[in-house]
């Protein structure tokens, strides 16, 4: 059994070069970057290097990077920190309906403090239209946050246009680029964003390291008060090994992105065409063209996502699903709901995110197995029986 791990978004192996760069900073060069002695200075130098490596990937100044613990923390810092620090301008925050839960929950927090939140709807492909954003911008809008790419359906959003729109009205614009950075080109200067979130584990780095790009001159209120780390914007002793890993992963991503993205998007397209060609009553979720190169997502009608996930796992294939049963909260993915998908169809959600080293053989293996898994589940599904009966009734 060849095995096929296709849940990169949840977790991916740390690249060997990255691990190698990290290892000395656990026990050998263990110093605290804030210490003035030589051990501390060694760690401080390592942070500086990581900052430069990441700045190179997203095209910003090294001092515009705030290292944090995760993408969720970066999003919380952006939403809460930017809204609070700039509320003199107004207390209205605009986000899209398909933002990551860390963004949406942060807006809930702001709402409790008296902020007004507007959610911009998306179309059936998961696209946020700049026109729709423009419609809800008011003079008291302080912050707009729209993600760079959606992790559940892979759609890449027109962030540059939305950023321009906000810039022209003097509104702060943040983008959650966790699913994007390291996988597609993200140039913060060209995009014109004020703030942007990213996480190392999405591009070959370790868990526990993320960053918020914050454009020089943008005011932010810290979430964690304490020491002077990250220029007083994020207290707490820095996670030096993880940050070093983030930097190393960023440097590799910058170097290899175009080649890797071309290779993965070819595999992705083969996978999508293969699934749609082999199974009836399956829809591709998200944008067919403007999508992450490593991302393929579907809704398979008449079967439930968790059951597919388990059936595939037994065959050595690991994927994700946005179905209600897959989540501990037993809620259907808010992204699929916002895209207007029939809730019953959304239960058949399946999400594949390909690792860098994914091979053609693995895609073939998936295409061999998946239709059988679906067939078995459909055979025991009352909904599929009903569908076949209705089809028979219609066509005689």
């Amino acid at each position, binding site marked *: 059994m060849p095995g096929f791990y296709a849940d990169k978004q949840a977790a991916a192996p740390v690249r060997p070069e990255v691990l190698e760069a990290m290892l000395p900073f656990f026990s050998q060069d263990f110093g605290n970057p804030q210490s003035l002695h030589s051990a501390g200075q060694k760690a401080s130098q390592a942070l500086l290097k990581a900052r430069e490596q990441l700045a190179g990937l997203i095209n910003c100044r090294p001092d515009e990077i705030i290292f944090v613990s995760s993408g969720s923390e970066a999003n919380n810092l952006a939403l809460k920190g930017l809204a609070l620090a700039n509320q003199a301008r107004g207390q209205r925050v605009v986000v899209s309906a398909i933002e990551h839960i860390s963004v949406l929950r942060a807006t809930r927090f702001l709402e409790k403090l008296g902020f007004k939140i507007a959610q911009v709807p998306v179309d059936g492909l998961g696209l946020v239209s700049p026109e729709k954003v423009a419609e809800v911008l008011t003079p008291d809008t302080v912050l707009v946050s729209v993600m760079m790419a959606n992790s559940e359906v892979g759609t890449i959003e027109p962030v540059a246009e939305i950023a321009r729109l906000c810039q022209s009205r003097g509104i702060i614009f943040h983008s959650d680029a966790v699913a994007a950075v390291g996988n597609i080109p993200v140039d913060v200067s060209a995009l014109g964003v004020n703030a942007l979130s990213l996480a190392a584990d999405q591009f070959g780095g370790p868990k526990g390291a993320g960053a918020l790009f914050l454009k020089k001159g943008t005011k932010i209120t810290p979430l964690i008060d304490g020491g002077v780390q990250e220029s007083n914007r994020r207290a707490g002793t820095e996670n030096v090994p993880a940050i070093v890993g983030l930097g190393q992963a960023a440097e590799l991503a910058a170097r290899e992105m175009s080649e890797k993205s071309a290779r993965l998007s070819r595999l992705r397209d083969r996978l999508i065409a293969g699934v749609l060609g082999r199974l009836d009553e399956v829809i591709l979720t998200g944008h067919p063209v403007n999508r992450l190169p490593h991302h393929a997502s579907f809704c398979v009608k008449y079967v*439930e996502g968790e059951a597919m996930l*388990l059936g595939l796992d037994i065959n050595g294939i690991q994927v994700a699903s946005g179905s209600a*049963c897959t989540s501990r909260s037993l809620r259907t993915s808010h992204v699929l709901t916002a895209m207007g998908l029939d809730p019953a169809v959304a239960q058949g959600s399946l999400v594949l995110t390909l690792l860098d080293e994914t091979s053609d053989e693995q895609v073939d293996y998936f295409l061999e197995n998946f239709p059988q898994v679906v067939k078995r589940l459909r055979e025991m599904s009352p909904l599929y029986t009903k569908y076949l009966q209705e089809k028979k009734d219609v066509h005689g």
Partner: protein
Amino acid sequence: MYTDKVMEHFMHPRNVGTIPEADGVGEVGNPVCGDMMTFYIKVKDGRLEDVKFQTFGCGAAIAVSSLVSEMAKGKTLEEALKITNEQVAEELGGLPPHKMHCSNLGADALHKAIENYLSKMSGQQADKAGESNPAASQDEHFHCPFCDFILPENAQLCARCQVKLIRCEHCGEYNREGEETCGHCGAGLV
């Protein structure tokens, strides 16, 4: 997450299918919530001669249906009506807390099929007596966000799956206590 027994039933479910001329049919759940089960029974001399099921749902839902069908087959109607959710979960070696509602659905679907048979026998309206849920006669139904049980007005606890409930002030739908936003309309819950 699941016990070996759950996985075994999920991989090799017993009694999958339909019974064309079934003596009783019971359907519970709905696809919007992610679980739907239909049980078919054939009764002979007061015993369940045959039990078949079809399930749309997660691994736990499929395993529960399979086990319930196995437990029920050959039993008298009285015995089968005594199969409890707790027994089902126990037989499976336990289910994760957020999957307990699946065990409720399995026993309910079986019981509904038996009630459907009994009501046919006693000449009553099948849809009336076959409905095990007394609140179902209301025109406007509110469902448990967990197990889809039809809830009465001002419920604080689902009578079937024991989930604590909070009602959305905006749309009136029930949500699980502790949720911050309504799963139906997106409004904040207080």
